[in-house]
């Protein structure tokens, strides 16, 4: 097991020949736990950490089918921000950004938060008005936002296409300076390390194959490594939420879709911010290694293949060149796809399920990574108290029955199908 990292411990280790020990402890499954968290991704590990840290519940196991961080926590484009419009989303994602701001110290693990600022572009006066409204809502909630006109954007991002030929002329933008990027793998490792130090068992290579039910309550799970009983069980498996829920006899308001992401060959520092195109769903930033990291829209039909379709590659490349013509000759280095659980209103679920002692964190659509700390924080609270925290009360699984849609785009249900 690891000791506390400090400048002194780094210096001391530099003098020895021994390799760094593994940062978190692997564990063999025990027959029973107070809480089981299914899914060793960012959300599951964060949940286990906050259960132990905030609520003193340390008899916890995280069950991971493959290895920790092998799912969407390592497949996203690493962006964090809190520029939302609807009450509920606004407060939740700001809480998440505040947790990000203290996370490296809290976990004693450098997650490399880089608050380089995110600029959402407007390509006409109407879109600029929408961004002004969004910025005002953010500022009323104490969140930083600055409205930019065309001249401001030209000064900050001089390499965009400002020519008369630009397909989507740049009219202005909205800047959130506290937004930025995080090293995503470090989030999984940091939470895993901090959780194991508090006594949590992390069990890799353990796939859940069914639920143990007693008198209508979930009392444990069947796994490829035997039956494990638990007082309370949480599902935090991103794209496979429906698959797990079906084992418990539940149907969810979720369809699983693919989102592709891309990294170019490394170049010298060029894109200093996170930029979101306003004419299509497209966003770009530059990693510390120099690669341009960007992504677009989902492929458009439900699938679990983790292999994207080529036409989306073309669309994303067209967006990139329309926005920044000078990168047209840069080659793609890697490209991959993650399974996203898309929900009718584009907002997630965190909370209780119709089954006693079963909790869910899922339906994250495009926004699971930036939510990681707050999702774990809220799910841990919900499990510990068997009741939602005010921050995640709006993310109930049954909100569509009550007209409680959280439609942040303001265009009605099924935004991703429109």
């Amino acid at each position, binding site marked *: 097991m690891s000791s506390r990292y400090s400048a002194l411990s780094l210096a001391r280790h530099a003098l020895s020949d021994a390799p760094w020990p593994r940062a978190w402890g692997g564990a063999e499954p025990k027959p029973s736990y107070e809480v089981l968290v299914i899914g060793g991704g960012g959300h599951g590990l964060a949940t286990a950490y906050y259960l132990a840290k905030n609520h003193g519940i340390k008899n916890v196991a995280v069950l991971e089918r493959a290895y920790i961080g092998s799912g969407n926590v390592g497949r996203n484009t690493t962006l964090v921000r809190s520029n939302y419009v609807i009450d509920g989303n606004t407060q939740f994602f700001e809480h998440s950004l505040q947790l990000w701001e203290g996370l490296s110290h809290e976990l004693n693990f450098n997650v490399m938060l880089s608050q380089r600022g995110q600029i959402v572009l407007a390509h006409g006066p109407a879109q600029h008005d929408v961004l002004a409204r969004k910025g005002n809502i953010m500022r009323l909630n104490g969140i930083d936002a600055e409205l930019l006109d065309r001249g401001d954007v030209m000064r900050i991002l001089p390499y965009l296409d400002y020519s008369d030929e630009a397909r989507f002329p740049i009219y202005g933008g909205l800047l959130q300076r506290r937004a930025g990027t995080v090293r995503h793998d470090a989030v999984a490792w940091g939470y895993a390390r901090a959780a194991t130090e508090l006594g949590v068992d992390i069990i890799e290579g353990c796939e859940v194959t069914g639920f143990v039910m007693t008198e209508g309550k979930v009392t444990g799970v069947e796994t490829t490594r035997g039956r494990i009983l638990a007082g309370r069980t949480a599902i935090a498996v991103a794209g496979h939420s*429906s698959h797990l829920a*079906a084992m418990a006899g539940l149907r969810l308001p*979720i369809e699983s879709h693919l989102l592709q992401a891309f990294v170019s060959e490394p170049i010298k520092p060029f894109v200093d911010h996170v930029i979101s195109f306003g004419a299509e769903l497209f966003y770009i930033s530059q990693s510390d290694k120099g690669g341009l990291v960007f992504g677009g829209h989902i492929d*458009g*039909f439900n*699938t*679990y293949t983790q292999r994207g379709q*080529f036409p989306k590659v073309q669309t994303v490349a067209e967006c990139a060149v329309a926005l920044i013509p000078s990168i047209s000759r840069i080659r793609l280095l890697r490209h991959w796809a993650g399974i996203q659980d898309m929900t009718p209103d584009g907002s997630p679920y965190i909370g209780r399920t119709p089954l006693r002692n079963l909790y869910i964190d899922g339906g994250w659509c495009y926004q699971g990574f930036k939510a990681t700390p707050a999702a774990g924080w809220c799910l841990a609270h919900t499990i510990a108290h068997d009741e939602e925290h005010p921050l995640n009360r709006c993310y109930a699984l049954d909100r569509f*029955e009550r007209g409680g849609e959280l439609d942040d785009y303001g265009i009605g249900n099924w935004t991703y199908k429109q």
Partner: protein
Amino acid sequence: MLRITCPFCGERDYTEFRYGGDATKPRPVHGTSSSQAWHDFVFLFDNPKGPHREYWQHVLGCRQWLVLDRNTATNTVGDSHVPREVAAK
């Protein structure tokens, strides 16, 4: 590239089509007053990992709807059907 066979036009790239969702959910009878029945029809999905029967519309072709069998774990495409023939069975 996913290739879909339109029963009217033949095999084409999937980009000519638009996905229309699960084709196995029975629509509540017209006039059903239970909001729960409509909620379940509109919002809940089996979303299986494996065989899936689904609607597509050939929006950039003949604009007809079709029913397609596809495996969501592999994207292997099976048979296409004319929806009214599926409904008649």
